[in-house]
């Protein structure tokens, strides 16, 4: 009995794994008939990553029963760095090892040991979001980078008509406005105007690689509640990050 799945684009897998590496060192994937999933907290427990890849994302997917596989994210990342966009990548689990084959002009095989990752039962997030915005992931990435020039945190303000990212310190003030007219906001839905502040170092880690996964990012938050940042993956998958808000003084 073996678990095997093939993914069409080696480079996209690399982005997925690098997005995980932004938060965690060891990953515990859960594989079932439906597909692959992972939920993990970063070591400081203020950020969570939630990856869901249904079997439709894969070219081939074979998993007769639920299996958990633990891998060192950095090791996996090293292997996937060797893959290119037009190459396919095949994963196979057997005998306590994960075999990764990059199928291009030649077939390259790598094998790494599986590790025991204590899969912690994570409490459900009590998530009710009063602001939902779909926007271009690159513009969001730029807005966060701009904010980083003056501060280590950025305030998200979801107002009636527009979304504003604002940061300030002794060094200055930076703001970015996303509104419907400029085309930066693809969808915008406000149940109740909200503001919350988040750590830039986490946001930029999350956006760095994940923005290559999808052109569009979904941002959701409520006043002083966690932020959800979701990227859709072609074929029906999604990668979501959750980040705790910062306490303001």
């Amino acid at each position, binding site marked *: 009995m073996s678990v095997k799945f093939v993914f069409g684009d080696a480079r996209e897998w690399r982005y997925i794994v690098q997005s995980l590496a932004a938060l965690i060192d060891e990953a515990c994937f859960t594989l079932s008939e439906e597909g692959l999933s992972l939920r993990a*907290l970063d*070591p*400081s*427990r*203020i*950020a*969570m990553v939630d990856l869901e890849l249904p079997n439709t994302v894969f070219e081939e997917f074979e998993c007769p029963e639920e299996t958990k596989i633990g891998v060192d994210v950095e090791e996996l990342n090293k292997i996937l760095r060797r893959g290119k966009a037009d190459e396919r990548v095949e994963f196979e689990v057997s005998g306590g090892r994960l075999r990764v084959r990059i199928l291009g002009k030649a077939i390259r095989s790598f094998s790494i040991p599986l590790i025991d990752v204590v899969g912690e039962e994570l*409490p459900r*997030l*009590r998530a009710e979001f009063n602001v939902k915005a779909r926007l271009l992931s690159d513009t969001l990435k730029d807005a966060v980078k701009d904010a980083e020039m003056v501060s280590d*945190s950025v305030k998200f303000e979801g107002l009636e008509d527009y979304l504003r990212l604002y940061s300030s310190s002794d060094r200055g003030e930076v703001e970015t406005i996303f509104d419907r007219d400029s085309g930066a906001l693809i969808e915008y839905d406000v149940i109740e105007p909200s503001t919350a502040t988040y*750590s830039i*170092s*986490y946001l930029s880690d999350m956006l760095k690689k994940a923005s290559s996964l999808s052109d569009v990012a979904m941002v959701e938050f409520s006043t*002083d*509640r*966690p932020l959800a940042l979701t990227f859709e993956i072609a074929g029906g998958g999604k990668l979501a990050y*959750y*980040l*705790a*808000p*910062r*306490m303001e*003084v």
Partner: protein
Amino acid sequence: MSIPWVEKYRPKTLKDLIDQEEAKKKLISWLESWSRGKPTKKAVLLYGPPGSGKTAIVHAAANDFDLEVIEVNASDFRTATALERTIARTIRERSLFGKRGRLALLDEVDGLSLHQDVGAIDAIIRIVENSRIPIIMTANNPWDPRFRDLRNISLLIEMKKLNQRDVITVLKRICLKERIKVDTNVLRIIARRSRGDLRAAINDLQAIGEGRRSIRVEDLDVLIPRAAQINMFEIVRTVLTAKTPEQAKSVLALPSLDYQMLFHWINENLPYQYSESIEALAAAYDALSKADMYFGRINRTQNWSLLPYALELMTAGVAVVPGKPRFRFVKYSFPQKLKMLSRMRELRMVRDSILSIIARKCHVSRAVANTEILPYIKIIYKENPEYGRKILKWLGIDEKRFKSLS
């Protein structure tokens, strides 16, 4: 593998935590000051002997106050960078899971060593300054000089060593829940062995009691004596009366053995124990002198891989010699060399203080006072005490202290 009982029966609330009323009260009022707004100190340094419940009290209090605990161990914060990664960037965030707050626990800060963990203490201090969440550190010994800065920024809370009765109470509770029939005598022995270390006691109980319906006194034999800190007299006796090299070397496994101290002790007491056989004494001193040579080389070259040879020679090498006298009880004494060194140090301090007085009064350096003035005062005092006393009085030197010099 089953869950360790220490985890399974870790107190869920402060009420379940045995004893430590003083510490509980202090911790509660400190956490309450956080929820009211500004606490006077942002960090707590929780100290006490192993197994007194330092980690347990933090988790129990966090439960009571609905706080999420971010726990880092000494091994996770060896360097400033490691600290940045784990907690420095999270001390201003709220809980992701909607808990009322968060709390950072830096467990066993005394695991830090000053030489290797450069900057770690400074990093902790910076973290405490910037933190918007309560920070609790635990340590066995907070009086270490390198923790001075940490002590200054922290509220110190002491966890007392648990007494035998408390340990027995907890063990009884666990036996009841595990449905194990056990005699109080058995628990008393376990408790005594633990020396107030509740974690050790619970581990021992699990080792002998898990999966059984009852424990008898005989079952305790499986527990090997815990390598506790025993005093130097016992250590020296173990080495000098050992019958096999292994017995003599067993002392090296003791936690926090001061081998340099042991060297002096053996050096001092060898003749008492081996007095009946000159050959044995010679052979033992031969081994000890070789150990000393190794220590010298280690000091000179800093080649610490030589240490095992030195240790082996000064224990097994000393213990196993031809013609070793039969065991007899002798009284050991504290190394004369160390006594002398400390006496000399005291003398030096007295002399230095007298020299400073002379130097100030006569406007000379202390070196000049030492060579040009002090010797003559000594002579004058000896030949003509009356006149000498006058000089001392003028200088403002206490006569008694001066006399202790000669």
